[in-house]
């Protein structure tokens, strides 16, 4: 059985998003959260390109994907910077210790 390219890409998209969400639901480590977020966004980006391909608007899908790459890089960088600060100030990267805003 041979799979068509869109089907393969769809499977990859669903896989990436699934892994990302699963990790976000289970992990308590800040760095891992950032990694999970990256996986999630990469899945979404691939979905954009796929949607552009399927509707015949490749250029639109690709330019949106590039926009996502830029935004996503900023998110990753700021997330990492925050993680470093959290480690410095609180001394741990465990998410459970980050609930200090709650009374």
């Amino acid at each position, binding site marked *: 059985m041979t799979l068509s390219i869109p089907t393969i890409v769809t499977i990859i998209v669903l896989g990436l998003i699934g892994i990302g969400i699963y990790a*976000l*639901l*289970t992990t308590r480590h800040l760095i891992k959260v950032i990694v999970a977020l990256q996986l999630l966004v990469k899945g979404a980006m691939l979905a954009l390109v796929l949607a552009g391909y399927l509707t015949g608007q490749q250029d639109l899908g690709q330019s949106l994907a590039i926009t996502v790459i830029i935004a996503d890089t900023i998110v990753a960088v700021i997330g990492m910077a925050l993680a470093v600060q959290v480690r410095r100030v609180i001394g741990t990267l465990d998410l459970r210790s980050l609930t200090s805003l*709650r009374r």
Partner: protein
Amino acid sequence: MAETLILLTIGLPWLGALLTWAAGDQHPRLQHTLAVAFSLAAGMAALLLIPFGKDQILVTFPVGGAFGDFTFSPDGLGVFLAAIATVIGSLAVIFSVDYMRGEAQLGRYYAFVLFFIGAMVGLVLTTNLLLMFVFWEITALTSYALISFHNDDPKAVAGGIKALIITQFGGLGLLIGALVLFSNTGSYDILTFINNPAVLPAGALAWMAFGCLAAAAAKSAQFPFQTWLPDAMEAPTPISALIHAATMVNAGVYLLARFFPAFEGVPGWREAVMAVGMLSALLAAIMAMVATDLKRVLAYSTVSQLGYMVFAIGAGGVFASQFHLLSHSVFKALLFLGAGAVIHAVGTRDMREMGGLGQKMPFVRLVFVIGALALAGLPILNGFWSKELILEAGLEHGNPLWMLIIMLVVSGLTAFYTFRMVWLVFYGQPRSEVHAHDAGTAMKVALAPLALGTLTTWLLAGSFARLLSESLPAHEIAAHPTAEILLEVVTAPVTWVALLVIGLGLLAWWQRERLMGISKALTGLKNLALNSFGFEAINRGVVLGMQNSAEKLRDTQTGMLNWNVAYLLIALILVLAVLALGVG
């Protein structure tokens, strides 16, 4: 040209807000200067906009399909309120230069004041109901932020939250109105709706009419929402003058006036509006007679005078209500700023600790008495003419006579509490050791134009009527020249009855010692009035209930990322399920 001016009138205060805030609190002089400059510039732009009022221009800013175009129309009703907001706004800012000198966090103060002025202009100029709702909520938010400006004072914080929660009920009414309009016509455009209200079925029109009435009552502190305004007096006094006397509280009256042609046919709507206005005017006047806090007396008198305007709209006198709005904005801003000068000099708001201040503050006494005479409705100040026009409107269109009689009684009560207030503050013997000094220069600069306005704005009656009648065809306002309007007032019997009642009110204050017996007999009523006739308890209950339920919702906030992601996922699945079911 009109397009640029509209942009300037809204944009200049907002730009000023950003700059004043960015200037930083370590440069208070720069902050004062920036705030004054930008508010004055906005005032100039608004005044230049007035001549465009009669041209029926529609300025459109397309913003895509989702919310309809952002449309602004500088018609008579809008430009006149925009001018009030910016001109009195700039006077309040000038007054603040003296009043707020040496306060910390001036950036926050001026930024919110300027943000408010811009939003108020947007609110009255826009013809997109959704956009109007947005501006409406911005004014509520800035009002809250400024009431609670002294955020280390628990009373100020409580007053701000109360105002915010109660005016939100009104905001909901306006939102319902906007959504009803949109779901039935597919557009948020106010003008087409007013010119042809039949686009809505009768049921939807009634929903919208009473939704707007609730919105107006909450915003203008009318019955049964009146209790937030006295508590809002914790705000710095220029804020009370600007937001809680001259501009924001007028937004409710403006809303009713704007939609009057569309709603007047709704069964029971006019009667409901009149009843709301009458009850507010009466209850607030009684409460003002017993209050001892200077600013609270002024707040109650604001509720009472707004009651007159709301009553006038219900009675069919849109011009009378808007003319009284103009008079009231000027003389009430004058009274509040005068009171601010007194409070700034004396350091207390309790009238029992004042007395005999007139000799120490001759200038403030002069302008305050001018404002007070206008509030009492004595000729020939602006409050006299506009109040008499309202009473005359109460006689027309077959309105019930007993309501008019109550409004006449209220004008007597107004005279009574006004003279009580002036006497307690400026005359008699000093009742405590206070070092009072007359107002500073910036205060005088702000007070003098307002006093001049109180003496003269009634001369504008004719041109104001022409402006409204030319730009608001649906409202059917008759354009008479000034002389004709004034003659009509002077020759109307109701004017003389009103003057008689006002005279009786003055006489009652003059002979108050002989009337001690009556006042003893009314002790029960007095206690009732001191407790706001029980509405205080109801409103406090609503506010507390709201805060408690918000506190309960805290349990859903675990602060854990995993749970938040789970909630997101569940919500997404729910939305997808609804969409799948809805489509299938």
